[in-house]
């Protein structure tokens, strides 16, 4: 039984907590959030104790695993502290950190203490994305030439509007499509150069937004050309899709509708108009968040290496921040 302590008690922390609570091999023993009432609520819902400080939680709750679900810029603080406490394992939400340096610090701290660090790139556990990689690896479309992904919907509301502060969240390029960037790198290999346009990279420091949009073009070392669409500006509901075109076929998910509607207007309404958006669901037997956390715990129990490494977390952030830089400078950015 893994004793898990969670830093953060927001949206993603709740998801992780419920996955541990549902897992026969885990239980949540401690919750820390800088908002004590949020910590108390989530602790109560999961039979855990809320703590007033992170160090105090490590001391008193004696966790085996710490799971870091605070907003991105503070991942590094809790991951490094957890590494230094010598735990069995650490989980950190995506994006791994707000800068490549932060990611490297986390990786180094965990390597130094021999603590396995798992970056929660949950997309690899979404069945359609995992299946697409299997199909590509099996040569289903032949040699891959282009890949396109799109992700997003309306703007996410959260603590202190931190998603709306590009200095904190990195906007859609870092926060949202890090999912796709990691999956793309996993499936198509390393990226050679990046070119991007976006809204938030052009804003002065300390800006705050309530929407964001970016279009990213990637050239992979393999020669594959990729395109990533990222939106927090679509009131028409959350959408995810991709297509992979090769010299022997095309593989897609939610991308080219066989018989659709040629024109759709998705318009923002005033808050008072109420939210009557249809929320599409695609139920699967296993929740991907459960699957990713269970994978990590299983690896910890057996001593196997988790499928997502700290380097994967670093590299995804490196690609995203290269795209961010390209959108700032207007020039392509070549990756090392």
């Amino acid at each position, binding site marked *: 039984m893994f004793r898990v302590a969670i830093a953060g008690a927001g949206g993603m922390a709740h998801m992780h907590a419920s996955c541990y609570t549902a897992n026969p091999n885990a239980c949540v023993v401690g919750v820390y959030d800088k908002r004590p009432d949020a910590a108390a609520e989530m602790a109560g819902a999961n039979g855990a104790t809320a703590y007033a400080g992170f160090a105090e939680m490590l001391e008193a709750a004696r966790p085996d695993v710490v799971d870091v679900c605070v907003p991105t810029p503070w991942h590094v603080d809790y991951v490094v502290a957890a590494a230094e406490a010598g735990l069995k394992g650490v989980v950190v939400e995506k994006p791994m950190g707000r800068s490549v340096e932060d990611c490297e610090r986390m990786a180094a701290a965990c390597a130094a203490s021999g603590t396995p660090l798992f970056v929660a790139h949950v997309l690899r556990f979404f069945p359609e994305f995992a299946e697409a990689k299997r199909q590509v690896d099996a040569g289903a479309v032949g040699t891959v*030439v282009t890949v396109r992904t799109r992700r997003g919907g309306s703007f996410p509301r959260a603590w202190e509007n931190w998603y709306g502060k590009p200095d904190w969240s990195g906007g859609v390029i870092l926060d949202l499509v890090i999912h796709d960037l990691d999956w793309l790198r996993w499936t198509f290999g390393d990226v050679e150069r990046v070119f991007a346009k976006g809204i938030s990279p052009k804003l002065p420091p300390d800006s705050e937004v309530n929407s964001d949009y970016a279009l990213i*073009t990637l050239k992979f070392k393999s020669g594959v050309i990729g395109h990533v669409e990222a939106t927090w500006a679509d009131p028409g509901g959350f959408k995810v899709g991709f297509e992979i*075109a090769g010299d022997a076929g*095309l593989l897609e998910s939610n991308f080219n509708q066989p*018989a659709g509607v040629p024109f759709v207007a998705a318009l923002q309404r005033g808050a008072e108009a109420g939210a009557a958006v249809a929320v599409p669901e695609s139920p699967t037997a296993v929740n991907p968040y459960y699957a990713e956390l269970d994978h990590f715990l299983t690896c910890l129990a057996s001593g196997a290496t988790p499928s997502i490494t700290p380097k994967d977390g670093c590299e995804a952030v490196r690609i995203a921040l290269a795209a961010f830089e390209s959108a700032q400078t207007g020039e392509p950015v070549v990756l090392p």
Partner: protein
Amino acid sequence: MTVKIGILSVAHMHAYSYASAVNALPDTELLGIADHDQARAESAAKTFATRAFGSYEELLAAGVDAVIVGSENVRHRPLTEMAAAAGKHILCEKPLATSVADGRAMLAACKTAGVQLMTAFPCRFSPAMVRLKSAVDNGDIGKVIAIRGTNRGRCPFDWFTKLDQSGGGAVIDHTVHVTDLMRWLLKAEVTEVYAEISSRMFQQEFDDTGFLTLEFDNGVFATLDSSWSRPKSFPTWGDVTLSVVGEKGVLTLDMFSQNLVLYSDKTGGVSWSPWGSNIDELMIAAFAKAVASGSPLPITGEDGLAAAAVSFAAYASAKAGKPVAPEVVL
């Protein structure tokens, strides 16, 4: 008044669709077809129940009011110049030209001769596109921020992949339609093009893949996939899509999505049967109406050259590995 139309070359498959539109419309007449490939002229003339002329000159002298240039891309200039000299209004297939110099020469020839030149951009006549444009013009989504566009297709091969006749592969072929839609929608010009271009789909000398990023003079940014990336087994020829992102919402267009889906045990495959409006016919009708009334043609040669210049800039950008400003054509 019936507008008598001649077709100068049917090398491009669109010329067949234009010919059937000319036949179908009440106020147009297909006077004849000429082609440097005489056999091609004759078989097309038979299909469309019209006359095959032995030369372009003969057709131009036979009393046409206007012509459609449907040749290979590199012949657009000489045929346009010839038709202009003969005093005929011209509807020229896209891409207007394979170089800015050729395009400028065509514009100059038409100006000198006092004839009008229109570029064949039928997508502007798509009812869904017209609807999208009116929503943008009406301010439904506020200020436009960005556009994501695609014009993907199957590789047409034939002369399209012979660079001395086409002037380029997928990028010259598929950049211009959507670039034109974006210019039309935004009333803005492209100031910068970045492109990743490859030929890995067919591993031949022509480009088959192009991912373009465009910046407009009003600050809007856009991307455009102009690849021949639809496999032979794809249920249709390709697509034209736009996602227009504004401050107050998103408008999406999937121009050719009005289809029935046929799952056939006869072919063993899935195919789409389009039931949307015939945009080629709408375009030919608008062309003929303007010719008949002597009013300005709805799309200009300048429009065609501005869009083509974006594809030339895309090639230059891919070569240079950095963003490139397209040549200003107006």
